[in-house]
């Protein structure tokens, strides 16, 4: 028997070509194009969604970073201001101290001068009083001494004894 399956029959070739090409054209128009487009669009939308999520994440990170930077800067500024205030305070205190010291020294100096003046004046008064008093005493002593004439004679003799004549 001869079934020749290895021998293509013209009818089957003809109908296969028609069926396949028709299937190809119809599926291309009504199935593959819309399906591939829909799949492509969906993939694109998923990709876009992922990209935008990534972008949002980046933006978030950027904002957080910015906030941190701002906070850091604010803190640094605060520190600077505080430091400056402290310095100013120290300066003021130091200046005040110096001024007070100078004033004090001046006052002390003045006081000392006054005291010296007062002392000198007092001493001068005391000196004059002492001298007048001494003179008074000497005058009174001398008056008493020379009330007796003999004694004057003795003294003169005594003095003369000491004087050696050359």
């Amino acid at each position, binding site marked *: 028997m001869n079934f020749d*399956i290895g021998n293509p029959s013209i009818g089957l070739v003809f109908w296969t070509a028609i069926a396949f090409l028709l299937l190809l054209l119809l599926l291309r128009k009504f199935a593959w194009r819309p399906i591939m487009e829909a799949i492509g669009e969906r993939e694109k939308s998923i990709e876009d969604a992922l990209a935008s999520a990534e972008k949002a994440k980046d933006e978030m990170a950027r904002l957080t970073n910015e906030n941190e930077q701002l906070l850091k800067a604010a803190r640094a500024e605060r520190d600077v201001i505080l430091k400056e205030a402290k310095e100013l305070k120290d300066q003021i205190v130091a200046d005040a101290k110096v001024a007070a010291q100078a004033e004090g020294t001046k006052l002390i100096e003045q006081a000392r001068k006054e005291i010296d003046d007062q002392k000198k004046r007092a001493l001068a008064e005391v000196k004059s009083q002492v001298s007048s008093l001494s003179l008074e005493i000497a005058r009174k002593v001398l008056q008493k001494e020379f009330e007796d004439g003999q004694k004057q004679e003795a003294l003169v003799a005594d003095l003369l004894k000491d004087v050696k004549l050359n």
Partner: protein
Amino acid sequence: MDFRHFFDSKKISFIAIFAVLATFSVTNIAKAAITDTVAATGHEAHGEEEFEPTKMIMEHISDAHDWHLWGHTSIPLPVILYTDKGMEVFLSSKFHHGEHDYQGKYYTYRLVDKKKIKVVDTGGEVDEAASQKVWDFSITKNVASMFLAVIVLLLIFSSVARAYKKREGKAPKGLQSFLEPLILFVRDDIARPNIGHTYARYMPLLLTIFFFIWFNNLLGLIPIFPGAANVTGNIAVTFVLAFIVLIVVNINGNRYYWKHILTPDVPWWLYPIMIPVELVGVISKPFALMIRLFANITAGHIVILSLISLIFVFQSLAIAPVSLAFVLFMNVLELLVAALQAFIFTLLTALFIGMAVEEHH
């Protein structure tokens, strides 16, 4: 290339689905076997003919002018003849399974070997010279089965396309979610790596080839009515597919492709050898596609039918369990082969297109 995806769990689950399908088809095989038993015993009772496995197998894998249902019942199919005098259209039931000649408008026709239509002269003898002039464009079993596959494919994919329009931007559902991985598989694992960035242009062809071959392979595995035809195991069908690939590859071949063929990178005095070799290569690539698909599918059918035949060769019901166990195994294997051959045909098509459109820098 990267073939790691063969071992993906996704693909393994496909095999599982095939296995489930296979159990159904095996029950059908068993039914077919019983009807064949009835037919065989019926024949023997009449003493008409002895069981010939080769004849039975060749009949099953060959094309036919009617679609066999059971016993002596079959669906008649239209016979379309293009003769030198004009068109002849009539139903194949007019032949009464080849027992009667049919008197047409122009000639008297006889069905020989249930397959060939020959012209009979007035003396009742086959007139070979007149037969040569008659072109047979009949809707045979293979053509009808192929049309069925085409209609099913159109229905399925137009419904899937509608689903994409209706559920725009949403996750796939139902049939759509079953077919989308396959479509993506063809795109991401077959077209893109082999063709490159111009792959989108060839996607319709590759997808159509893949699903056309796969569906026809699966239909061929069904042993009763809507299937039972050996469409992709017929060389005429694989010839047309391979021829389309040949045309597409050579139409889209760029100047590098043609330069490689017509002025190969060898000393000029080797051209008389190299150019014919390259031209043979152009033909042999699609030729291999044609033979591979035809041989694989036909071989699968022959193995299954041979295993069934064992029961009738031994004329013992005791052999049936063994035979059916092997048939079950073969059916599962054939389900795998059905997808695998569709995949290989598509992959090689993509590869040939990729080689033809590749840009050299």
